[in-house]
């Protein structure tokens, strides 16, 4: 199972733990964190841009700052890239293991062309077939309000891309802040692979001024972890179909990925 959090925000956090710290915890738990900074005509500010890059770096993901029109395409691209990257990291890790060398130079990129071709072919299959979960975490502070229709549209578009994958792919949606002080994030949609559930997500929003990005991230991490304990269908390994003829990797990846 590949796990990602995609944070969509338009500014700086101002309450609670530093978001990069929360993102580092997510990465520790095997969840990659991507961040989209969304801007109108204005800019996101130097501080906001730095924070966005910071969160993605700590979370082992990608960050981009885009306007509303590019949002759907960007989210789609990031999710795909991060899937490839997660698998890439796992494969590099395994290569070191197999070749018994610890130096940085052991990577897929430096394999001889023939072997590289074969390894990447298997990686492509994994990227297509491994089950994937993406939790969207959406900043709904006051300045985000006019951008929410574009966000909703982009979520819909992302669902469309996920549905095209061969592996099971699910989305969940959270927004932050919640309606009162202790509530850092609110779930709008539980894990779903169904297109129709994506429409009209943000109906009853209590627009408040705070932006507790860090605590909201922690909330989603907890959700992921609670969820994986509570459910039996959440089996943490690669689908066996991606481990065909003699690649012999079944079960080897699992301890790293999950």
């Amino acid at each position: 199972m590949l796990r990602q959090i995609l944070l969509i925000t338009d500014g700086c956090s101002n309450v609670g733990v530093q978001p990069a710290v929360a993102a580092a915890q997510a990465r520790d738990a095997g969840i990659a964190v991507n961040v989209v900074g969304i801007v109108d005509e204005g800019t996101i500010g130097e501080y906001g841009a730095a924070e966005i890059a910071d969160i993605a770096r700590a979370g082992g993901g990608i960050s981009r700052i885009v306007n509303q029109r590019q949002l759907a395409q960007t989210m789609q691209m990031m999710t795909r890239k991060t899937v490839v990257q997660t698998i890439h990291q796992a494969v590099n890790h395994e290569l070191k293991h197999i070749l018994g060398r610890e130096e940085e130079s052991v990577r897929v990129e430096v394999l001889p062309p023939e072997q590289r071709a074969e390894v990447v072919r298997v990686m492509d299959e994994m990227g297509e077939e491994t089950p994937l979960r993406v939790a969207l975490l959406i900043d709904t502070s006051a300045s985000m309000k006019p951008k929410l229709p574009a966000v909703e549209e982009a979520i819909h578009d992302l669902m469309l891309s996920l549905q095209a994958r061969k592996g099971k792919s699910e989305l969940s949606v959270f927004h932050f802040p919640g309606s009162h002080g202790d509530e850092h994030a609110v779930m709008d949609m539980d894990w779903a692979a169904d297109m129709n559930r994506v429409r009209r997500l943000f109906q009853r929003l209590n627009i408040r001024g705070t932006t507790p990005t860090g605590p909201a991230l922690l909330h989603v991490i907890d959700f992921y972890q609670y969820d994986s304990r509570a459910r039996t269908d959440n089996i943490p390994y690669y689908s066996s179909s991606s481990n065909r003829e003699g690649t012999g990797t079944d079960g080897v990846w699992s301890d790293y990925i999950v």
Partner: protein
Amino acid sequence: MQEMRAAVLKSGEKITGLWNNRTYRIVRLLGQGANGVVYYVERVRSNGDHSRPVEGYALKVGGDAIEFQSEINALKALEKIKRQQASGSRVGRDEARPFLVEADDTEIAGQKIPFYVMRYVPGMTLSVYMRKRGSDWFGFIGGKLLSRLEWLHENGWVFGDIKADNVLVRQDGDVELVDYGGLTPAGSSIRQFTEWYDRGYWNAGSRVADFGYDLFSFAVLTVHLFNEEKLKQRIAGVLPQIRQREDLMAIIRECPVLNPYESWLCRAIHSKFHSTRQAKEEWVRISKQVYRMPRRAPRPTPSWLKMSFAGSALLLLISVLYWAWREQWWLG
């Protein structure tokens, strides 16, 4: 995430493969693909063998190594299919043209960067071609493009990223697809696409690779070629959630060149074809009819003619006024 390392190379610079040890000299930039830069290059022969003519190639220098390798893998797969088909049958011009000449790594500024070499295709992009040579070519070229797609589809692949920039027209009017970054095995999710051309973007179906996906993009391509302004207006004016196939059909109906193809395009947009072969045969049938039809609309008046007419009318007016002034006719 590692950012794409777009290698900028100047003409005259040389690239030598680390594994196969072949050297190429950069002649000029051809274009920037989604994942790498493409140059026109010449192979540099070792030991000064100048007897053979210099061969020109297209060389793509990569960004992200993994993405790049999947692209090479896709080209290799096509190459393999073609070789299998060519063995046993007479090898024609097209069969002699390999998808992939070689793939290798090179070192630029101390960094290992992958590259691959393709046969260079002289020609221009579809939009430039249509602008220069006129819409008469459209039916013919459309048929050629559908033939290319038919071959891909019959062998289990979907091109994915069909758009005007990715279709190259050769001097003889035949076409080549370039930038295979979107090439996807049928049944998987489309690897790379362009928003306007995407079936999902128009709420017209999934992003699963099937032949209908390419045919849909082909239909959008025709709209893009002949009515780009209207397409842009629609995209800007319609809310994304209600964007739909009917928007495309409305633009098609407004376009005289596309009129004879309306029913074909409608079927492509609604995924009503059973196969690409059927779609191609239908297209060729229509285009043959179009070429034999008497012209309904005469060629548009060239702008120089309009200008000279306006000029002479102005001169006439001036002379009449001058004559009237000289004669002082209003004074009787």
